[in-house]
């Protein structure tokens, strides 16, 4: 196996391992659209990163954190807002995507491979990228472990958790920030357009086989790693684009999990 394939596999698994448990929460809390909004906003982050001459992942992280703060801090005042969360997310998602595309135009003659950002460039992952991915992944995993119990409690029922003394808004905000971090990490693997798929599809595949929240989170991580391995194998064998191949592999796993459900 070639070095670049091993690096790609290691990078993909780093992201899949944290995306699994986080994706489980995204599914339980019905925050798929929030994930999609983060991924759309990422293009603006990439453009800003290139314009300012900093690492694109940092640009993505910055923009995603701003979006997470906007949504996370908005919630307690929801009563006063006449627009639903859905609508606000739609405005943010497409507003930031359009801003990103416009900002890209200002880059002028800077060499810019839009496709690599939209669909990922996992085969080009370097040693340094790997260090960044694992460092970021470990931070995300630690934060998630710390907020796991209260976040789960708030996910089951927010009001019950509030009465029982859980600071649910603080945990929700931390969760959104962690999610912003994972989107920035996953961008390298599947690209910004497909980031949400790595969060949602493995978690959805894990549902049928799980009886506890932790089991579902763990199985989602496993399903994510299998998708990365399967996608990379297909990409190497049939010369297909690696990011989309990973998502197709995740989709195949999901369909298999549905068929397993039917037959039992």
């Amino acid at each position, binding site marked *: 196996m070639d070095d670049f394939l091993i690096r790609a596999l290691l990078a993909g698994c780093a992201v899949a391992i944290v995306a699994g448990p986080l994706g489980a929460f995204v599914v339980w809390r019905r925050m798929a659209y929030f994930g999609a909004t983060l991924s759309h906003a990422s293009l603006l982050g990439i453009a800003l990163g290139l314009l300012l001459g900093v690492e694109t992942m940092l640009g993505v992280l910055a923009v995603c954190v701003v979006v997470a703060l906007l949504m996370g801090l908005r919630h307690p005042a929801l009563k006063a807002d006449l627009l639903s969360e859905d609508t606000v997310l739609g405005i943010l998602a497409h507003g930031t995507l359009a801003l990103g595309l416009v900002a890209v135009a200002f880059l002028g003659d800077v060499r810019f491979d839009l496709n690599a950002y939209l669909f990922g460039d996992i085969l080009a992952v370097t040693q340094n990228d790997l260090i960044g991915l694992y460092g970021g992944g470990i931070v995300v995993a630690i934060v998630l472990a710390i907020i796991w119990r209260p976040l789960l409690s708030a996910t089951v029922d927010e009001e019950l958790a*509030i009465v*029982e003394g859980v600071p649910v808004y603080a945990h929700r905000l931390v969760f959104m920030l962690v999610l912003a971090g994972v989107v920035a990490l996953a961008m390298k693997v599947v690209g910004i357009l497909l980031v949400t798929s790595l969060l949602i599809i493995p978690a959805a595949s894990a549902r049928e086989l799980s009886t*506890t929240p932790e089991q579902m989170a763990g199985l989602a991580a496993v399903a994510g790693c299998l998708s990365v391995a399967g996608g990379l194998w297909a990409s190497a064998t049939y010369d297909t684009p690696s990011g989309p191949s990973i998502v197709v592999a995740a989709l195949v796993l999901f369909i298999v999990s549905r068929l397993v459900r039917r037959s039992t």
Partner: protein
Amino acid sequence: MVEMLIEASAIDVSFAGRQVLKHGEARVGSGEIVTLIGPNGAGKTTLARVMLGLLKADKGEVRRRADLRIGYMPQRLNIDPALPINVNRFLSLGLSRADIGHGLRHGVLKETGVDHVVESPIQKISGGEMQRVLLARALLRKPDLLVLDEPVQGVDIGGQAELYALIRKIRDNRGCGVLMVSHDLHMVMAATDHVICLNQHVCCAGHPETVSRHPEFVALFGASVAAELSIYHHDHDHQHDVHGNVITAHEHVHEHDSEHDHG
């Protein structure tokens, strides 16, 4: 002297400019069962939510005893079917890590009659079982105050009486205070020490029997219901004018504003 657990006074709440509660008040002492009754939209749940800290009142004050532990049983819980969780795990979520292993658990599960469903996925149990599971979760927290929002919702008639009896027994055994929200009169009246009748303001309050004789209560729920509930033949000790204002003073009646109408 009963120790005061929680007291809400002069609570005003409005949603989108429409006032749903004016001058709401309620207090619960330890060992006391207080019930908020009234028709739909009367502000019962709103007042309870303000007292729980789930809703901010426009005006008014809620005072709690220091370190008050509240066990809350919400009206209903909708847990996403995508979340795999059984009853046992659900019950543990209400406790701090240190409390999970304590011996109280077995007793509470038996008392509330949910020991046979602990392994079931929470989304698969019946409405009546869910109410008891919610009660069990509230009790496991060893609460000083139980707040029950429509506790018998989705429970059949036989089960309702049983559940009210259980709530009374819980109060007797533990001496905790109970704040209940209900729109169903008959059984609540029998299970309650103090009734607060709401219709966007406090119509009347007091002992169940006193309240059931109150003219505003009669106007709100109809004479036949009131007659059924009140045991003795009686004369009203005060009357209302056309605006619903009290003409003769009564110890349990609060001042009314003439803009309210009691239709």
